[in-house]
């Protein structure tokens, strides 16, 4: 009697363990078996968008791409910085990394666009309904802290290797900032300004569109900036499950001990990151300044 008690206190009994791993297996199996049609449809749409974007960027001659980029960037950040950032693209081309860079860019752009399209409405809903805020917050924490490999496996099992699981993995990792900062931005719109809107008889949709979202815009832009950067951060991992692009260079470089190749791929990712960061960062600040009419 005493011995069994002691051994019970020393070793956690086997039959008291939660079969969590088994549950996740079961859920994954069920998703694969029952959700086939849904996943197929989803795959098709995502693939269509990613492939089209990638093809378009690759179809553009590098010179045309540079000119278009310069014009757009000059509009957002002014000609000086635009020239410097265009120099970054030139540098990538000079390293012979144009095509993989465009593939990566396509991936990042699509992932960001999806994150924004999902993230802003979710953020808005979280700001309006405290229940959703409570429920979704821990999920966002989980999405950011869970090691990517943990959800890469079920995602690959559902979609198999390719651009789609890569995109979804990127989305899971990169979406939280835009959701968080949309939520925060709306919650932070000064309560007296919102009250003024209410006192004049605004509907809640009018409040949202005419007051809260415009005032939350700097915060939302900051969220988008972070989301793009995190999407770039997933490039190498995404390449392991078939994303293609610059990540492949880094990944192969490491795998085959071709240090130079890995380094060049890494540098190009950094250059892309700097270009995108400067561009979105400046857009945020410009936003704040536009009030000084």
């Amino acid at each position, binding site marked *: 009697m005493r011995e069994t008690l002691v051994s019970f206190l020393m070793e956690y009994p086997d039959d008291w363990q939660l079969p969590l791993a088994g549950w996740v297996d079961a859920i994954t199996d069920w998703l694969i078996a029952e959700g086939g049609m849904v996943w197929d449809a989803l795959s098709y749409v995502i693939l269509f968008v990613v492939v089209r974007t990638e093809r378009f960027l690759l179809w553009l001659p590098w010179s045309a791409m540079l000119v278009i980029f310069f014009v757009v960037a000059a509009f957002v950040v002014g000609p000086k910085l635009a020239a410097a950032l265009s120099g970054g693209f030139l540098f990538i081309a000079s390293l012979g990394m144009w095509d993989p860079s465009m593939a990566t860019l396509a991936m990042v752009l699509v992932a960001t666009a999806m994150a924004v399209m999902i993230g802003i409405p979710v953020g808005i809903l979280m700001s309006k309904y405290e229940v959703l805020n409570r429920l979704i917050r821990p999920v966002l924490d989980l999405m950011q802290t869970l090691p990517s490999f943990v959800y890469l496996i079920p995602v690959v099992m559902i979609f198999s290797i390719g651009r789609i699981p890569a995109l979804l993995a990127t989305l899971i990792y990169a979406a939280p900032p835009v959701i968080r900062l949309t939520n925060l931005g709306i919650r932070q719109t*000064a309560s*007296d*300004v919102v*009250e*003024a*809107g*209410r*006192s*004049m*008889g*605004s*509907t809640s949709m*009018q409040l949202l569109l*005419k*007051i809260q979202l*415009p*005032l939350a815009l700097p915060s939302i832009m900051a969220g988008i900036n972070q989301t793009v950067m995190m999407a770039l951060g997933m490039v190498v991992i995404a390449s392991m499950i078939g994303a293609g692009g610059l990540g492949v260079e880094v990944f192969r470089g490491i795998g085959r001990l071709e240090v130079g190749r890995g380094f060049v791929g890494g540098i190009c990712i950094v250059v892309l990151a700097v270009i995108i960061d400067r561009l979105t960062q400046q857009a945020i600040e410009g936003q704040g300044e536009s*009030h*000084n*009419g």
Partner: protein
Amino acid sequence: MVSLSREAQDKEMGTEDYAISLRNLYKVFGPDPDQAMQLLSEGEGKDEILESTGNTVGVHDASFDVEPQEIFIVMGLSGSGKSTLLRCVIRLIEPTHGSIFLDGEDVTEMDDGQLRQLRREKTGMVFQQFALFPHRKVIDNVAYGLEIQGVSRKERHRNSAEILDTVGLSGWEDYYPENLSGGMQQRVGLARALVHDPSIMLLDEPFSALDPLIRRDMQQELLDLQKRLNKTMLFITHDLDEALRLGDRIAIMNDGEIVQIGTAKEIITEPADDYVANFVQDIDRAKILTAVDVATAEVPVLRQDHSVSGAWQEISETDAFYVVLTDEHRRLIGMVYSHDIRAQLENGSVSLDPLPIHEMERVSLERPVEDLFPLLSTNSSHPLAVVDRDGRLEGVVDASSLVSGLTKDGEVPRGASQ
């Protein structure tokens, strides 16, 4: 059943004659307002209720009526529940209990759509910290109320420019609020609240955030504006000077309760309790009170047709050095010195006629006490005669009646003790 319906009737009785009527309004903040209401009805104090239940009683049984086109002030210290009360009127804060009637319509019965309609048409609100939309130009701040009602851009900009002109801001349409001074920002706030031509204005300490000089300008402008626009105003302030300057009537709030409602004069001369008395003790009563408030009627008065011996009888009962002379309708003639009467008596004369009659300075009943000081000091020995429109004597003002009129219960006001 019977008593219930009667209560309901009483509740609404007369409300249609007023622009705003509150009936037994309560607002309790916290986890369990019902419990707090129960405890309140059992006579529990607010502090104990907060302690034991965590509920804050913001407004406690407020009732009043505001006449159309009246400026009605609600005054009280910070935290006394003024802002909460004001917000309950258009249900920006949901009242816990009680009714609100605007032009006889029960606001507490309205659904969301009716409430929006009310806010779009009948009321306009102005905020302490202006609460302008920082991302909109001045003109689009003002136009907001029309924009959400679907008024075309051209029309709402025309109306907004017009109202901006009214508040003295034409030329500033295309600026952003942050480029305007505080006073100008609040003018935008006023214009924004006026653009849809509401009949009722709700103002929550609109000038408290402004510098004193600007504040006075804005107060004057509000009065000028009111002469043209004739709105009903429910105006919140913690500043007694402002209340006295602007208010037709003043309600004083303490700790969620309305402790007194009255005109400036009533509040000053008959404070309902120590809280109100405390509020008004520092006020310059000379600005509020008028001649009739400080006049004394206890003066020897002689009718012209009386005899000197009768006069002597009169003055021997007082120690006054003069007698006020009137005609048979109490119309003022002047004053006669006591020693002249005495001399006349010693000469054996029985008529008042040959006595020297001295002029008295006449002041109307409504003459501010402020004006009386210089009049009294130019001829310090002569009291002032307070007369009505027909010249009939109401009383006299002399130094001692002035002092006792300006101090309550014979207390010497702070300024006068030096």
